């Protein structure tokens, strides 16, 4: 049994749900492998911390809502499954038919071209809005300098300016 196998059985071992030969094999490995022993120790510590927490009551109707969402997710998945199956079927029929074979290559080429143009546009637009660390430092200097200047006006509402500034800093940090 190697480390990979041990990791698979670790939770069951710590939970005490495995016995017999498998349990012995895990114990034997933990005896010789320090890495896995440390992992087991960490997991055990985490589990004991979790057990110390007070149980949190579930809000009313939680289970019902959860099951509804699961059902909705499953039906969405099955819809996607149906669509993808249909696409595959069309693809297969195209490959079989000679006309389909003729248009397949240009269609793929067209698709690749669209993806290339779209990707480039996306990268270009996203880079236009990108603010890297250098920019951020520069803009921060500008903003702070302006703020000191604007707030020092005796005819300004310093508290409103400071509040705006703090809020904008916080929204930037989010």
């Amino acid at each position, binding site marked *: 049994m190697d480390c990979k196998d041990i990791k698979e059985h670790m939770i069951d071992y710590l939970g005490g749900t495995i016995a017999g030969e498998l349990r012995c094999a895990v114990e034997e490995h933990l005896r010789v492998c320090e890495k896995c022993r440390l992992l087991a120790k960490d997991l055990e510590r985490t589990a004991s911390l979790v057990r110390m927490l007070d149980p949190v009551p579930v809000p009313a109707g939680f289970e019902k809502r959860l099951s509804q969402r699961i059902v909705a997710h499953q039906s969405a998945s099955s819809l996607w499954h149906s669509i993808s199956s249909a696409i595959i079927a069309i693809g297969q029929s195209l490959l079989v038919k000679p006309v389909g074979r003729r248009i397949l290559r240009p269609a793929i080429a067209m698709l690749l071209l669209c993806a290339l143009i779209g990707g480039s546009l996306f990268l*270009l637009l996203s*880079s*236009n*809005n*990108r*603010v*890297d660390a*250098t*920019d951020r430092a*520069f*803009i921060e*200097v*500008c*903003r*702070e*300098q*302006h703020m*000191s*200047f*604007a*707030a*020092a*006006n*005796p*005819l*300004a*509402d*310093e*508290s*409103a300016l*400071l*509040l*705006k*500034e*703090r*809020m*904008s800093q*916080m*929204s930037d940090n989010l």
Partner: protein
Amino acid sequence: MTHRLGFVLVGRRAECGQDKKMIRRPWTSFTLFLLLFVIIGGALAEPIDGPTVLRRMLAAEGTAAFIAHQVTTLTRGPALTSEQTVYRDGFRGMRTEYISPPQLAGEIMVDNGKEMIHFVPGHKVARVRPSRLFALKQRTQEAARAFLHGALDVELVGKDKIADRPTFVLVVKPRGKEKAQTRKFWVDSEKWIKLKTEDIGPDGTVLSTSYYTKIEFLDKLPQEKFQFEPPPGVKIERGPARTQVMPLEKVRQLVKFRILEPTYLPNGFKCIGATAIPFRQGKIVVLRYSDGILSFSLFQTPGRVLDRGFLQRLREGPSPSGKNIYSWRRGDLNLTLVGPIPLHEVQKIAESVR
């Protein structure tokens, strides 16, 4: 009848030796003296008009000492309110302790006239910056000059009560601007401190309000109030040192690149100084513009400080957070404008930079 006719009749009766009338004489004289005193005093005293209230308000900035509870509300975008305790001793010190909202509660700003410390407990950091009070002192003189040179329209529009204190209500706006952002001040009629400020947009909507709900005036505040010792474990971040605002010609001598200037400025704005601040290995030149109420700064520095894609308008107009930052490039220079200027005006400024 006697009172209506005045001192001539009273005098005659007194001369006639009527005892009863004689008793009245000292009182009548006293009343007359008082009346004269009021008339002469009134004629000599400065009339309370808008400019007088503004002048006194500017003067009080540097002298008044008080402790107050302040409420500030931003109404542009999603409304946001903060509450803070303010300790102020003229230009000698200012301390603001935020009470709410939860994101700001516990933050403290202390300014001792030399440096300002902004303590952010959430980030365990104390940012040390140049004193704003020091800058305020300079700018107060500048505002007084702008006012003297007729750059501002000041109008006394009424009286009101704020924090249980009588106030004069003042409207200040840049002269000659039909549609401009204006500021409304409620100025204490005894101590001349602004107790309430309202920022009003060109369309008449209130953009922000701040007012004191409680204020206690003192002779002086202990200087310890304006010292701040960061708690252990707090990181101290020092920003750039104070930079001196000077005429543009002086700044030209300090930098190696050609400083550009806009030939177009929005109505009422003028350059009120420039400065050069160190940034990495080089310098950023800042040109300051103001119309007396609003202000904007134009930053310029050579080289590729900004990322290629960043050289465009960063924020359009007044965003909820109040940011107005615009960037563009001219030749080898990066230009960045920060201030509450509408986009179409920024475009004109950007095109006119030479």
